């Protein structure tokens, strides 16, 4: 059984079919990449998995169970974490606090015990902070621990957002363009981290990425989308050489000539 099953999912915005009968499975322990030109429906698929949108048709199953009856905030509790294309951090809080929000899924106390700050709450806080330190060590964020997000450079924010998703301790990690806007060195770091996330932490990764170099170096399988439809599914090498994918990205030779003529 696959960890995540996208089963014949369709989503329409008015007359626009944003996602058109898309089906694929993400196996436990693999890195699965979604590629495609702008407007192909990649981020929309992420929003479907996060339950921000309801699919018009089809089913999405996680660990064998449909998630369509879940509210958006219940998705994290299932063990699905995500990052956002345009970083969505908590700007008026420190890196530490941002990462701690990621631990919300593991919150055991309620409002009253927390207001009273019972010994149990203190013990739980210690455990959260211990877990956060592991993430900080993993992503080399030590220098930024108590810095406010609003004052951090773009590259660091990107890493913090990944860290916040890891703090959830997910089984499935959705990365929406983890390398967009990063320098070559930073992109290499991201590639190593994704490797480690997969191998050391055993977390399955589903990512959207335009950097084909990163995609081909870390992913096990790639799905190319265009206009909401599935174009090609296979290893990075297979997908990159699929004529349909080439067509979607650069168009076909004769067509181009027709336009020019």
């Amino acid at each position, binding site marked *: 059984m696959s960890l995540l099953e996208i089963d014949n999912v369709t989503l329409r915005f008015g007359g626009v079919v944003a996602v058109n009968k898309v089906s694929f499975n993400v196996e436990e322990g693999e890195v699965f990449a979604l590629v495609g030109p702008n407007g192909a429906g990649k981020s929309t698929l992420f929003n479907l998995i996060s339950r921000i949108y309801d699919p018009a048709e089809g089913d999405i199953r996680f660990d064998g169970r449909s998630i369509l009856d879940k*509210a958006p*905030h219940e998705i994290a509790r299932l063990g699905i*974490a995500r990052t956002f294309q345009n970083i969505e951090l908590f*700007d008026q809080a420190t890196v530490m606090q941002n990462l701690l929000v*990621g631990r919300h899924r593991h919150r055991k*106390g309620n*409002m009253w015990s927390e207001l009273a700050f019972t010994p149990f709450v203190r013990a739980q806080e210690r455990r959260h902070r211990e877990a956060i330190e592991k993430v900080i060590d993993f992503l080399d964020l030590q220098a930024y621990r108590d810095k406010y997000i609003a004052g951090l450079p773009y590259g660091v924010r990107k890493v913090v957002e990944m860290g916040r998703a890891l703090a959830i301790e997910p089984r499935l990690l959705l990365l929406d363009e983890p390398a967009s806007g990063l320098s070559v060195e930073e992109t290499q770091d991201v590639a190593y981290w994704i490797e480690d996330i997969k191998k050391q932490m055993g977390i399955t990764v589903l990512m959207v990425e335009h950097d084909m170099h990163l995609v081909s170096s870390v992913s096990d399988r790639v799905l190319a989308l265009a206009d909401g439809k599935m174009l090609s599914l296979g290893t990075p090498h297979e997908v990159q050489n699929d004529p349909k994918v080439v067509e979607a990205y650069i168009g076909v030779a004769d067509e181009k000539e027709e336009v020019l003529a």
Partner: protein
Amino acid sequence: MRTVFKTSYDADINLFRHRVQAGWYVLLLVVALALPFLLGTFAIGEMTNLLIWAIACMGLMVLVGQTGQASLGHAAFLAVGCYANALLQLNLGLPFIIAFPLAGLIAGVAGALIAMPMTKLHGIYLAIGTLAISILTDDFIVLAEPLTNGVNGLMPPSIEIFGVSFDRYGMPGRLYYLVLAVALAVIYLYRNMQRTPLGRSFAAVRDSEVSAQAMGVNVARTKATAFGISAGITGLAGALMGHFAGIFNNETFNIIISIQLLLAIVIGGLGSIHGAFFGAAVVALLPQGISITRDFLGQFVGGGSIAIPGLESAVFGLILILFILFEPMGIYGRWLKIRTYFELFPFYRRDMFRRQKSYLKTERMR
């Protein structure tokens, strides 16, 4: 500048960052405790009023500063707390020690219930919605005359706890201590809120609802909780206001009070307990400050103590405009800058605190 070497997770969890900081707050507490021996009856009354306002400001701060939800109707929760406290004592004969926390609880539940439909609104629409609640409460108090005595108002009984009198006029010093104790308790709860998942979920909702949701925070429930805690604290302040005023009716908690509360926390500095106290100081002491200044000036230019209509509102408005223009982080923000300047002297740079963004931007959802 002090470098704190953290040797355990508790260093981040504890109430104070280091002993020196704790020492300063103990000193502040000692001063607060000594005030009744240093000040006259009138001044101690003013300090009591300040503390009550500070509690109300902390209540609104939970909602606006921590959770980023605007409210122009918090006078409604002052009224709920005030009337609940007085009616529980007058009609059911409950002692203050039971009626007072119950009043806070009733206001809190009212807040949470109102929040359920209200928090579907964002930003300015939420502000208008809460404004409507405030106006409705005013009308409701008049309509429910058999219970609330309408426009004639109510007089809460003198506070007595286990035979000890805390009468507003007879024992102003004792009432001051009582209010101080409540303020300290609220500060403690507020600090606990800030250092636990509860406060962090509030901040998450304030800064980005989409990602709060992705982290497993139930946004609607978090907002309702914030409204509840906020209204509860405000209700406690309302109950104390009733005792302090001696008599109150529907007019006591009008829209002006709501606006003053909001102004206070903006002037004080959003998002901190300090801000609530600084803002409360401005609101509570400004009217007295104006009249003292006017009398003082009157000696020289003549005219004596003739009241100038609207002077208070005008000064208030001017202060607010100046703060929004020149110091959006409020008095507390200015205090932080001054402190940093001296701590880092001579290395302070002007743009150190430049990245300021306003709160109340949660309408970005979807």
